[in-house]
């Protein structure tokens, strides 16, 4: 192995934008590598999830999970205060950030107070959401991802393509090439070799890091406990080796009781990767105590709002905040499976991303995401906390065309006079049955004049031909042809 001494310097990340969804989706669809990688990975994840719930009363468990999350959200302001009080009592310092920028500033200031030059990171989607790495680097602080997938993505100057498996868009050969290119390992298909090499590279960085930054899966209000779910042990290293640990999370991650955690954990691991348990489950209660030999000397918790409290104000959109970030919705999404995570151009891709991102980035920026679903319902069917994702997609479509409650940033941005008039026309036809009947009958009679090309539809399919006579007409004929069997008695009903 020749990897040990290769010091890798983080690079600025390659960026995608939700505004470019169509182009990014087009590129992904035309890329057999991407298509193949996602199809294979999603098929595997779907099978693993299904198998892992074998013998479980999944519906009851989902109901329980949904109720735990709904109860936590119903009491959210109180639980957050309770969490703060109990964390502080445990010696964890609590910070509140209204947006990502403020959260970045808080984290940077903690780093600066410790004269930190290098930060090691456990996996945290909230930190991705607020572009923490770029912020720290601009301040001269190096931020290195320690989750293997995140590490690879960072080496490759990309962003995660999945919230649980950030490098799922890469296959073995690509990973081998990235590691070779950036860290000097040998080109190989030997996964164990590559894992060992990355482990070796990262191990040194853990030892040298001044600050560890992690996410939080569940923050328990009644005990002030931060739960962290992970498989590689990098989460434990991040939160125990450096002298300072900063946990950063969205305000919605709080749960009321410690006893709420096991059902959510059971749902999370099975829904995400089909695991019964993860290799590591960390419960962080406090910094290093008097007489203890390890653990950070300081633990901070940064609670980020970033649009969440505005989602919270709407009794329908509120369901979005139940999410426990398992990624099952994307694993089962036929659109995500085909275009992959980067096409969405958002931190959170797939169905959950399409109902969450508009609140964070506005509908102008994310206008194409709520429609990027056939509303097949697969996401809602597998969601472990029963978020009605398809209904929320429709709600955001309403907001986008200006027929919702107007409380999502950018509401009405997609409304055009032409489209609105077309739907008004449809309404008029469909509420005037006589017009409808004669109109549809005419369409049938004129079928020879129907265009054989119907825009995008006919690029891939033949155009449907209107039938010569409508069902309305056929039924009339059918009834006229029938010998009357109705008795007067029946007619009176």
């Amino acid at each position: 192995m020749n990897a040990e001494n290769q010091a890798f310097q983080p690079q600025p990340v390659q960026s995608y934008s939700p505004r470019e969804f169509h182009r990014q989706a087009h590129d992904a669809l035309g890329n057999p590598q991407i298509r193949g990688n996602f199809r294979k990975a999603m098929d595997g994840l779907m099978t693993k999830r299904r198998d892992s719930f074998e013998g479980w009363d999944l519906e009851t468990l989902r109901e329980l999970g949904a109720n735990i999350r709904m109860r936590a959200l119903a009491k959210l302001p109180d639980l957050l205060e309770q969490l703060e009080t109990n964390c502080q009592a445990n010696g964890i310092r609590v910070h509140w950030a209204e947006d990502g920028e403020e959260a970045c500033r808080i984290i940077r200031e903690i780093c600066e107070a410790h004269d930190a030059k290098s930060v090691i990171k456990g996996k945290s989607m909230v930190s991705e959401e607020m572009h923490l790495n770029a912020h720290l680097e601009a301040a001269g602080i190096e931020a290195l991802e320690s989750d293997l997938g995140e590490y690879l993505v960072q080496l490759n100057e990309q962003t995660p393509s999945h919230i649980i498996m950030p490098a799922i868009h890469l296959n073995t050969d690509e990973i081998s090439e990235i590691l070779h290119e950036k860290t000097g390992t040998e080109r190989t298909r030997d996964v164990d070799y590559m894992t060992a090499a990355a482990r070796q590279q990262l191990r040194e960085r853990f030892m040298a890091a001044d600050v560890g930054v992690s996410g939080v899966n569940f923050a328990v209000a009644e005990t002030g406990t931060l739960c962290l779910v992970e498989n590689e042990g990098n989460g434990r290293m991040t939160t125990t080796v450096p002298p300072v640990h900063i946990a950063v999370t969205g305000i919605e991650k709080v749960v009321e009781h410690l006893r709420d955690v096991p059902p959510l954990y059971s749902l999370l691991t099975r829904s995400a990767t089909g695991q019964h348990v993860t290799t590591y489950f960390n419960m962080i209660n406090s910094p290093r105590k008097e007489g203890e030999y390890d653990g950070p000397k300081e633990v901070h918790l940064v609670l980020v709002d970033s649009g969440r409290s505005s989602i919270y104000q709407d009794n329908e959109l509120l369901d979005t905040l139940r999410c426990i970030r398992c990624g099952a919705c994307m694993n089962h999404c036929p659109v995500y499976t085909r275009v992959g995570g980067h096409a969405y151009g958002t931190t959170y891709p797939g169905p959950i991303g399409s109902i969450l991102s508009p609140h964070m980035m506005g509908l102008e920026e994310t206008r194409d995401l709520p429609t990027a679903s056939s509303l097949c319902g697969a996401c809602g069917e597998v969601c472990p906390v029963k978020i009605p994702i398809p209904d929320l997609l429709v709600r955001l479509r309403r907001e986008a065309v200006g027929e919702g409650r107007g409380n999502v940033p950018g509401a009405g941005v997609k409304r055009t006079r032409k489209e609105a008039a077309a739907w008004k026309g449809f309404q008029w036809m469909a509420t005037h049955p006589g017009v409808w009947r004669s109109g549809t009958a005419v369409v049938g009679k004129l079928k020879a004049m129907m265009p054989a090309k119907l825009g995008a539809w006919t690029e891939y399919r033949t155009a449907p031909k209107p039938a010569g006579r409508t069902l309305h007409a056929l039924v009339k004929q059918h009834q006229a042809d029938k010998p009357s069997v109705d008795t007067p008695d029946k007619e009176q009903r």
Partner: protein
Amino acid sequence: MTPVKCYPPRPEKVYFFGTCLIDLFYPEAGLDGIRLLEREGIDVLFPQDQTCCGQPAHTSGYHEEARAVAAAQLDLFPEPWPIIVPSGSCGGMMRTHYPKLFAGTALEKKANEISGRIYELTEFLVHVCHLRLEDRGQPEKVAMHTSCSARREMGLAETGPALLAQLGQVELVEQARAAECCGFGGTFAVRHPEISAAMVEDKTLAIEAAGAERFVTSDCGCMMNIGGRFAHQKKTVKGEHIASYLWRRTS
């Protein structure tokens, strides 16, 4: 999500809501559905003032327009007869979305009442009519594509295959990823044509790979999409609405 439905005994009469796609493009499928019901001794009432359930506007975000169109359908079914819909997608709209669409409005009660009487055709044939079929057709390999709305919104993954299983000469083959969407999704196919095309391409390849000579579906949207793709590729696999298929093979 899907409430447990308690099925009533076989009624004397039913209403038939044909759906706009069937009305315009596949009227024979609607008529065959009516014929199947009539053969079971049920009088089928077809309110001539029916138009569309309002779903296209609903899923496009045009809430007001959808509600107006839906409201125009609510008065068409005054008697307490079941309302049969030969589509899981329109059936799902009327059963699960009407109550939400009218929640808090003057029509809420009526919408709830109508919603409780909505049955998808194959659901009604299996669970209420307890339909028995005698196959008179030639041996054939057939794949069933159950629409996502029938499968997930209405919880009816089993009724179509249960009916096909009664046809002695028909071999029901299962395509890979049978539960995956065909990519139609109403306006989705128009707004995101390339993604939709990738989905329908995979669907047609899976149906072909399963060795099916024909695919049968209970939703005309899927049929238009999958069948249109097969035709575009000049493939011989044909699509048929399950009502027409059952009627053709058993009459």
